């Protein structure tokens, strides 16, 4: 069951009561989100079954295509900024040819997954939260539960599958565009020849960087799905509730992505 009995709390007595309640609620919601996510992961085994195939394909399409435009711009500029700001510094030591390595490793390890996740959380994640919240407040989720159609398998699993598959692919796309963006800046602003830049870029990036980056991307995808769905199912109070769920889903995914991204880097590189 993804729907819960509505909460009611007496107004808090003082600041500490209010704070304590917020912390408890945050813990409870994290727990609920985790449960939904685990159930959805378990439901992934039905991903290719006849019933779910169409919806999974639909979500893959929506997730992959919807944000490609924004992602292109974000990726290019991320690479360009990285190249420009490290390049100007390196030029003082005559080392500007090394921006290739710098841009490439930062993109592959950190910036690629991170920027992709932010864009996807803001576009796809918010759309998921808004859609599920609308369904919740218009009793569509209740209707599914009464028909004993599991909303997790029916709604969450296809979205999770799409995010798990598309996030790494979009991250590769972001990485490539970022490196190209860096190359353009290097060539036009810092007089680094294209060939030198790319040689330098590919030479020092390790396979491990790529794997860790893609792993991160998949984890971020799961976070976006879990947070957006949990917030969507929790919506109350009509149209206002849909707005609240959408905003919260974006904010909470951003924060979680930052924290988890740090921990993964820590785990693999420290």
């Amino acid at each position: 069951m993804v729907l819960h009995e509505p909460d009611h709390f007496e107004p808090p007595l003082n600041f500490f009561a209010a704070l304590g309640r917020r912390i408890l609620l945050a813990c409870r919601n994290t727990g609920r989100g985790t449960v939904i996510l685990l159930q959805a992961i378990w439901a992934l085994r039905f991903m290719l079954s006849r019933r779910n195939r169409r919806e999974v394909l639909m979500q893959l399409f929506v997730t992959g295509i919807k944000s490609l435009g924004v992602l292109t711009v974000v990726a290019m500029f991320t690479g360009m900024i990285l190249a420009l700001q490290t390049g100007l510094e390196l030029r003082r030591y005559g080392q500007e040819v090394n921006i290739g390595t710098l841009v490439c490793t930062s993109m592959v390890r950190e910036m690629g997954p991170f920027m992709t996740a932010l864009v996807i959380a803001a576009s796809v994640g918010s759309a998921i939260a808004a859609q599920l919240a609308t369904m919740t407040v218009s009793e569509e989720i209740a209707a599914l539960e009464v028909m004993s159609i599991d909303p997790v398998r029916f709604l969450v699993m296809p979205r999770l599958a799409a995010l798990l598959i598309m996030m790494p692919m979009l991250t590769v796309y972001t990485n490539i565009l970022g490196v190209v963006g860096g190359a353009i800046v290097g060539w036009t602003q810092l007089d680094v020849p294209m060939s030198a830049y790319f040689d330098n870029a590919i030479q020092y990036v390790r396979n491990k960087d790529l794997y860790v980056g893609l792993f991160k991307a998949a984890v971020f995808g799961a976070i976006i799905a879990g947070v957006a769905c949990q917030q969507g199912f929790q919506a109350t109070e009509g149209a206002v509730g849909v707005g609240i769920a959408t905003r919260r889903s974006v904010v909470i995914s951003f924060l979680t992505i930052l924290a988890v991204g740090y921990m993964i880097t820590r785990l693999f590189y420290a």
Partner: protein
Amino acid sequence: MNDLPAIRFERVVKYLGGRRVLDRVDFEVHRGEIFVIVGSSGSGKSVTLRHMVRLLTPDEGEVWVGDECVSRARGAQLARIRDRFGVLFQGAALLQWMTVYDNVALPLREKTSLTEEDIEQRVMGQLRLLGLEDAVDKYPADLSGGMQKRVALARAVILNPAIILYDEPTSGLDPVTSRRIDDLILSMSRRYGLTSVVVTHDLHSALAIGDRIALIHQGRILEINTPAQFLRSENEVVRAFLDAQYITRRGAWETEVDSETRPNS
């Protein structure tokens, strides 16, 4: 076993938003009858209905469906109890990204192993019965409120439930469409011998279709009676409710214009 009531509420108390929304609600719905719950908005009608399929759980008391306690059921048992119900939600609750056909076919696709041909046959049969064959490929957003409710009704009955719950089936509809929905509820219940629970604030349809009518007021059931006795009730709240909808003791339905132009009758 067959003389068991279809649904039984035993002193159900429910708190929502810090208020006692249901206050020791006690009633039985008999098999095969149309049981109508009337009350003004906010009186607890939807909350009562939601307890029957355990979308809400009582804080005190129990809800029984046949010989099973739905308010304590979980997992497979709950699914089995819910399978006996078809629910028509207040806003129809159709999935917006699916066509009418897919919405009605959904329970069959998800819960049976019928082939697409069998599914098509049943869905088209049901849609024809409800006069919806022209809407097959439309999306819910392109339909009028009355049509959406009919589609939702088709979806609710496609798996042949024993009990149908209707949450305000006629609210927001014009009088002509409302009477059509009333007729549908009647014919559905007669055709399949279904038990129906109808929640409404429209007394006209309550009197037209109900075998028994219950009035709920501020979370308490004040009166349960047949339509004829309900009209003659001496209970103040019932009288106020009847008067508000221009219904006299004799059951004559006065229109607003009538009662204004007629000299004190």
